[in-house]
């Protein structure tokens, strides 16, 4: 599903976020990218989502070299990914339902079919009752679950999450982790960057240290 070949990422003026990283994540696998803060976890995920481009090496996602995509092709790659961001990036002027609807409107889904899918996704994360709520009215854990619902609403084969349990108390973090586990169990490839790898004891670990693989 994901293959990194000798991937490096250097930010100007010469800071190496990743140095010659190679690994593979198979289809249907649950992988955790672990490491200290600033180890390059977020950069690694951004390379998968074509938010950043590698300065060296090749990033293959689903057989496609996402580091060498034309600008116009990037949106179509992102539509096949479920992305959960560290800062969630919810739209605070839209309610829960509309936030989850956004990826489907972008992909041009027929509205009626889209509405069904949105409710299914909200149901899956336990927010169906709160579809009219604005994100500001939701707790931290609920906001995180809303972000997950938005990531999975287009039923991607690959789900990527950056620190999805940061700023959550232990119990809520456990609930959120369970949601990812559920998706993994129905065959979705899940890649999670987290400082708290203990939440996913069964996961395959990819450990970064100062931009290098250590495992």
């Amino acid at each position: 599903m994901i293959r990194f070949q000798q991937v490096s990422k250097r930010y100007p003026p010469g800071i190496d976020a990743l140095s010659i990283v190679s690994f593979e994540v198979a289809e249907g696998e649950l992988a955790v990218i672990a490491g200290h803060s600033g180890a390059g976890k977020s950069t690694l995920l951004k390379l998968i989502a074509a938010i950043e481009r590698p300065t060296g090496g090749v990033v293959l996602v689903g057989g496609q070299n996402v580091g060498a995509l034309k600008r116009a092709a990037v949106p179509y790659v992102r539509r096949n990914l479920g992305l959960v961001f560290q800062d969630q990036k919810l739209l605070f002027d839209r309610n829960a339902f509309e936030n989850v609807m956004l990826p489907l409107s972008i992909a041009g889904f027929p509205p009626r079919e889209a509405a069904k899918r949105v409710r299914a996704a909200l149901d899956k994360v336990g927010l169906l009752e709160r579809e009219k709520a604005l994100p500001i009215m939701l707790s931290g854990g609920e906001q995180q679950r809303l972000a997950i619902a938005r990531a999975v609403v287009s039923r991607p084969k690959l789900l990527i999450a950056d620190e999805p349990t940061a700023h959550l108390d232990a119990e809520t973090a456990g609930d959120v982790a369970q949601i990812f586990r559920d998706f993994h169990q129905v065959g979705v490839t899940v890649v999670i960057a987290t400082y708290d790898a203990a939440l996913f004891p069964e996961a395959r670990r990819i450990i970064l240290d100062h931009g290098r693989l250590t495992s």
Partner: protein
Amino acid sequence: MNAWLTHHRDSLLLALRRLAATPLNTLLSLLAIGIALALPAGGQMLLVNAMQLASGAAPTPQVSVFMTLDASRQAADDIGEHLRKRGDVRNLRFVPREETLARMKTAEGLGDVIEMLPKNPFPDAFIVDPKDESPAAMEALAREVRKLPRVEHVQLDSAWVRRLDALLKFGRTAVILLAALLGVGLVAITFNTIRLQVLTQRAEIEVSRLLGATDGYIRRPFYYFGTLQGLLGGALAWLIVSAAAWWLEAPIEELARLYNLEFALRPLAAPDSLILLALSAGLGWAGAALSLGTHLSDQ
């Protein structure tokens, strides 16, 4: 309906919602655009009317030949004979002084004054339609007729036609210049409103991109916004000009009646109105395009 059409409809609705969401800003922008465009549009309307008036007043260029007051009818006939024989005269009409006097007596306000005069103040006259209506040929004809005996004055009607023509050309240039300047103004207004829109929608734009939105998807609502704002501003300009025309109609009619002119102010013609609307919409689109090129390019 396919996805692409649905998105166009949604973009249009979104643009309308954004216009309606800030009514005061929208009103001010529309007023600025409407008033700016009303100036060249109103100028165009007046120009068309002036051309109408000019073409009614001077059907063909003519040369008027006036005899001296003491010229006898025989002398006038001799001149008439001479003019008729000339090769460059197409048509000749003799206007006897008695006819002029009779006509002037019936004119508004002049009758009493003319009554009081001891004798007929008008000379015999000829109205000459030249074969060649070019200014140079008419000039040459006038020069030769002036040399004839008992001819007091030769007046080239083409002179004032040309002056009027030049004036109208000047007016046309002024309208085009005004339209160009204020068109740039419209682009600038749209550029700025779209810039502010992009700033307030920054979060939404960023998230949409991350969720796989194409450039077209993100830009389309802004294009609709700019085009709509231009179009509505153009419609406002049309309303302003039409209202002004309606308001001026009665006073102008009265003025025309006092001058014995058959003239009614015509409002902006349909083709001109369409051009106004198309141009304002197009310029709004252009402003949006420029603004998006500047403010959305590197995200």
